[in-house]
């Protein structure tokens, strides 16, 4: 039985468009022009207990809006959501007792009080038994390294410190589902990796279902087997990470520096038998783009090395950024 079910979910925002100039702003005052922005557009998916799902998409794709609806902050314009059998915005109390939420952009803790006080307050709010609270706190202190931070007011923490405390706070009541919206935004590599390890461990130990939005795709590669990709509010991919890469990143890019300048007709002659596109910013540097299902990189490299003098070459690995761009530019739905 899925733990999260989302069905034809839609969210519209009404925003008003500012007109420019003095006269325009005067008109705004008297008569506003509203625009409907559809941030989430008929999205459906379901998630099984224990999955770690990456919810990805470019900036403004609608990731946060989806998370806010899943956590009960926003009321959907239409469509259905069930998380552990509950409708988030309708059965808010029961729902939020069983989820953990972290927004990378904004702390869920109280700004002016020390971390430990905030955690104690949460213990009361979520009615966590004292023994459980102590045990989890101890564990989080170890794994997240927050022991030294507990007596500092939240506003004095650095972003990385705050993020770790937020993560601990969101898991105190041992929720079966954890929502993370951009949990690693703005963090350095060390903190990022400690957070990733922590999420992995929580998932392994408690079988916690995790939904994670990010636009840092290395998070996804470290944590998720399944990826849901959205763009302009629409679902464009739902499936496992590896086949997404294989499917969409057939294209690779070979960067070559030549010792002598060479023009396009010369290169076309050399590579006449291979299906390759080429681009260049100057005659010493050329980039070859090819589909790896049609031609293997060693073949092209071998041909170039045998016919021309090459100073340096580099084969770019497929990145998920390219996947997004690829699917984005093709503008078509990729069925898993």
């Amino acid at each position, binding site marked *: 039985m899925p733990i999260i079910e989302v069905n034809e979910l839609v969210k519209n925002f009404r925003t008003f468009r500012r007109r420019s100039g003095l006269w325009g702003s005067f008109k705004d005052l008297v008569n506003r022009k509203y625009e409907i922005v559809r941030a989430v557009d008929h999205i459906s998916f379901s998630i099984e207990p224990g999955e770690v799902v990456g919810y990805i998409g470019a900036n403004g794709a609608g990731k946060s809006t989806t998370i806010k609806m899943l956590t009960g902050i*926003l009321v959907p314009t239409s469509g259905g959501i069930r998380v552990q059998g509950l409708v988030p915005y309708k059965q808010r109390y029961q729902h939020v007792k069983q989820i953990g939420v972290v927004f990378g952009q904004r702390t869920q803790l109280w700004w002016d009080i020390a971390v430990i006080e905030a955690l104690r307050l949460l213990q009361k709010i979520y009615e966590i038994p004292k023994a459980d609270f102590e045990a989890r706190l101890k564990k989080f202190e170890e794994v997240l390294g927050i022991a030294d931070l507990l007596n500092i007011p939240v506003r004095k923490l650095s972003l990385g410190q705050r993020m770790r405390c937020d993560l601990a706070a969101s898991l105190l009541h041992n929720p079966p589902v954890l929502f993370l919206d951009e949990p690693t935004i703005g963090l350095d590599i060390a903190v990022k990796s400690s957070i990733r390890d922590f999420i992995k461990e929580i998932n392994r130990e408690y079988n916690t279902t995790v939904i994670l939005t990010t636009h840092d795709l290395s998070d996804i590669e470290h944590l998720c087997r399944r990826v849901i990709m959205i763009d302009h509010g629409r679902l464009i991919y739902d499936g496992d990470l590896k086949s997404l890469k294989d499917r969409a990143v057939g294209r690779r890019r070979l960067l070559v520096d030549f010792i002598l300048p060479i023009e396009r007709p010369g290169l076309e002659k050399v590579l006449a038998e291979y299906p390759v596109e080429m681009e260049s910013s100057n005659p010493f540097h050329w980039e070859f783009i090819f589909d790896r299902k049609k031609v293997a990189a060693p073949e092209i490299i071998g041909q170039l090395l045998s016919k021309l003098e090459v100073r340096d070459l580099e084969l770019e690995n497929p990145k998920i950024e390219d996947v997004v761009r690829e699917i984005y530019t093709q503008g078509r739905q990729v069925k898993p």
Partner: protein
Amino acid sequence: MQLIGVLFIVSLFVKVPSLKGWHKEEIFFIFGFSQVSLGLFFTFFSNLLELSERYIIEGNFDRILLRPLNSFFQVVTERIYWEESSTILVGLSMMSYALSRMHLHLNAGDYLVTFGLVLAACTIYLAIFTILVSLTFWFNDRGSVVSVMLMLEGFSRYPVTIFNRVVRVILTFIIPYAFTAFFPSMYVLGKNKYSIYVWMTPAVALIFLSLALLVWRQGARAYESTGS
């Protein structure tokens, strides 16, 4: 800034002995009553007035909605403003000044009833301000309804008989400011003509508070959070 209103009434009564049949002491008592109940509201529930700025525009209402507690309760209690309690003191001194000048002596029961009426009046302020402040859920414009509330509050400080009929009806049944000072004061001032209104005060408080919670609930559903 409640002091401004007090200075106004004091200056006025330097030159004017009475106001449409109400003399200075009675006016001061009503005024003091309104300051005490308003001061209680400000001290304990002022955080409500931050709804637009701190919670809606800055998006902190997200955090409120993620906790398994009533959102209204959370916002109202998140901070206590002890500095506002000066208003209560000003109100109390006006009331006691009036009482001593009128040589009215209250027994313990009277004090208890008055205290209950003050709580009811404070609840009415809470209800009215909640309804007004909930409007910002829909108009998610930066901007405050605080100024309107404070201006409106001016109507609660004077005997409703100085207003014309339309305003009196509004203040009694629609925006029940008449119940935040004038009617409950009639208990101590002993105007039996109004005793039915005195006893209606708690009922009005409960009715309007329920209404306010309803409006709040609808408003919270319209909350749109902030774009990231």
